[in-house]
């Protein structure tokens, strides 16, 4: 039982110390929840991103949400603890490739969008046209570029996550645990 203002102030101080001590764990928990939220929303196509084109459907031989083919890119999202106890979420490794490119590069391309050369007079364009032809896709002779629109899936997921109450619930859960533990000492 708290009998005076001095004891109350000490209790508050101890709770603050406990929060500081658990800062990294709390933030890792929050980052993990965000990662799972982002992957889940992307896989279920709940980010409101544009659907994939018919050309992509033909190439992948599968109709699936944007950003999700085999799921390899999403599985590579990781959380990075920082020295100050914060945790950065939504990282892609610099090493480790998916196909020929690092996951980080693929994520940047998908996020920003990109153009694929398709100029019939260029070497790269001819290669692209040849590949697409094997998938039954034939481009207009005058097409010089294929535009793949941006898909900022992580930023959209972060926005949705911010509007949800998941983060608040995690912080409240930790707060209850910490306060309950300290409160027991004063019973």
């Amino acid at each position, binding site marked *: 039982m708290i009998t005076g203002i001095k004891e109350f102030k000490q209790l508050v101080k101890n709770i603050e110390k406990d929060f500081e001590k658990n800062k990294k764990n709390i933030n890792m928990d929050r980052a993990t929840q965000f990662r799972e939220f982002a992957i889940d929303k992307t896989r279920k196509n709940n*980010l409101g991103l544009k659907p994939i084109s018919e050309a992509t459907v033909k190439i992948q031989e599968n109709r699936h949400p944007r950003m999700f083919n085999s799921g390899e890119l999403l599985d590579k999202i990781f959380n990075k603890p920082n020295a100050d106890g914060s945790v950065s979420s939504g990282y892609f490794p610099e090493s480790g490739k998916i196909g020929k*490119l690092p996951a980080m590069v693929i994520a940047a391309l998908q*996020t920003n*969008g990109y*153009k*694929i050369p398709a100029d019939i007079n260029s070497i790269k364009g001819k290669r692209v046209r040849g590949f697409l032809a094997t998938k039954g896709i034939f481009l207009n002779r005058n097409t010089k570029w294929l535009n793949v629109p*941006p898909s900022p899936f992580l*930023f959209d997921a972060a926005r949705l996550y911010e509007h949800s109450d998941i983060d608040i619930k995690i912080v409240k859960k930790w707060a209850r645990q910490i306060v309950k533990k300290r409160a027991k000492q004063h019973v």
Partner: protein
Amino acid sequence: MFNNFANIIYSGTATESDNTDYSLSGLSKKVTFADLDDTFILDFDAVDISSYEDITLQLSFHPHINTAGTSFLTIAVGSDTYTITKFNSGWNHILIDPAAYNNLSQITFTGKNAGMVMFMDLLGYRKADNSTLDFDIIDSLKNKISLDYDVSTTLAAAITAGTNSISLTDATYIFPNTQLTITDGVNTETVKMLDSSTIVGTFTNSFIAGDTVTANCPVVGEDEIGEDYDPICGLVITAKEAKSLPFVDKSLTGSKVREYTSDLGITLYIETTAKSKVLQLTNEFNFSYGKKFLIILDGEIVQVESSSSAFSDSELGSLPRQAYFYTISPQAVTKSQRIDITDFQIEMESKEWS
């Protein structure tokens, strides 16, 4: 959807002039009401605006005169006169319900304080139209953003109208699909490069050797992204999320309950063949617009804030690109309307208790 009144002719006893020093759009009207009851009259092409949601305009007064409780300004719209008794400092967003105006051709301002100076900007009429709601934002961004590619040269040889050949003195940073503006001081023509010596289509005008050629970084929406300009500042809608955010908008006749019903995810990207130029344009964008900037959307000033930005280098034969990500709410839709009560009568009758 926002429309200007067409072919406005200004008259009246107040003095009016165009002003660029103090405005929201870059050009406002400065009106000096030197004497009491001086008028500022706007005559325009008659228009039926009864199906629209608001007449909208922005007004600012200098010096600021607090005359609470007394008439400050009257605005006559059609057969109605609205009396303004007070204003806040800075710009005041004025809304007038247009339901009664199926043939409006004049608006008159009458000053009620001698010596008053009024600035007016963004006068028009608007409504939330499902077909234009989202692309109005793209248009607003296109009107706001301007980037200087900083590449100029001259014609190395004359151009004859009807031909498609072009020869430049210096073609550094000019690529296939670069948009060029050529001018001789009298005629100006904008063309797109097909390759290093030919344009898409043919020239409308003739030019001589030595005429100025400027390479542009056009700001385009999705309808023009297929032009594949190089460089390009592209605006793409990438996501649309439903939401419900109601609020009350006060007008001169009452109030309207409005609601933001969606958020639009927009990506703005800067792209060109030369990485150094992408970085230069990015630096200019960051300096001129930064993380937050203001746009004019349907007669209102709206703040736009980038949630993040990312750079992707040249891979897979693609071009280097810097992208910025925004979430912007389209114009709110009107859910219901309340009209101020001006007369309220209660009839009472006494009765005996039984």
